[in-house]
């Protein structure tokens, strides 16, 4: 085996915002010469789907600024503090928030999730999908991108046990 440092990540979240940390850290670590494995479980499985349809929800997330990605500077600076009750009643609110976040990401030169995922693959980051949650949520292996390994907790520990850094996201 190589003497490279090892990074093991467990990715458990399936929203657009939380898709960033595992892919950013995995791709960067790979660029720094780490061997990287990411174990996707529960909602994290959404990040491995062929058809990515990730959304972000500001509902019940008081830490999320709601700002407009267009218009003059003073307008962009406004934080739209929309009450939870309104957010939950307005149809399409989540889709709107998702569209706005994607635009903000683009405006700031931040990579898209499909791009970051592809960069991870190119850098030979190993993706493992949790077989138990694949079945639990009624997914098929064909729902996911090619080249995955399907395994369980023991598979994760085989690599994680020898890792230098281990993160739960």
């Amino acid at each position, binding site marked *: 085996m190589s003497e490279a440092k090892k990074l093991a990540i467990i990715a458990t979240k399936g929203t657009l915002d939380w898709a960033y940390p595992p892919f*950013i850290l995995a*791709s*960067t670590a790979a*660029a*720094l*010469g780490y061997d990287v494995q990411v174990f996707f479980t529960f909602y994290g499985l959404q990040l491995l789907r062929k058809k990515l349809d990730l959304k972000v929800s500001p509902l019940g997330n008081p830490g999320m600024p709601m700002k407009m990605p267009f218009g003059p500077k003073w307008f962009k600076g406004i934080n739209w503090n929309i009450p939870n009750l309104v957010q939950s009643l307005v149809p399409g609110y989540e889709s709107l928030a998702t569209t706005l976040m994607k635009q903000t990401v683009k405006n*700031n*030169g*931040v*990579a898209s999730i499909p791009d970051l995922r592809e*960069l991870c693959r*190119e*850098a030979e980051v190993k993706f493992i999908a949790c077989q138990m949650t694949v079945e639990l949520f009624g997914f098929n292996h064909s729902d996911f991108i090619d080249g995955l390994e399907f395994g369980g907790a023991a598979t994760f520990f085989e690599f994680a046990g020898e890792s230098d850094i281990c993160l739960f996201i």
Partner: protein
Amino acid sequence: MADKELDARGLNCPLPILRTKKMLNELTGGQTLRIVATDPGAVKDFQAFAKQTGNELLESAEANGEYTFVLKKKA
């Protein structure tokens, strides 16, 4: 003059580092890569990248909101 140039202007973390790594793969040991970026976080990131990968950071400069780095690929 550097052997290769990378325009990373407008890109944000971690793209400048990822593109740099990719481009370094195309160079041979001892050759240099010049990177221009606009992400202020890149200054610390390129120091950290050089330290961890063993590629030498020959130059790190800022002018008019643009950051220029020159890396020498590890032999």
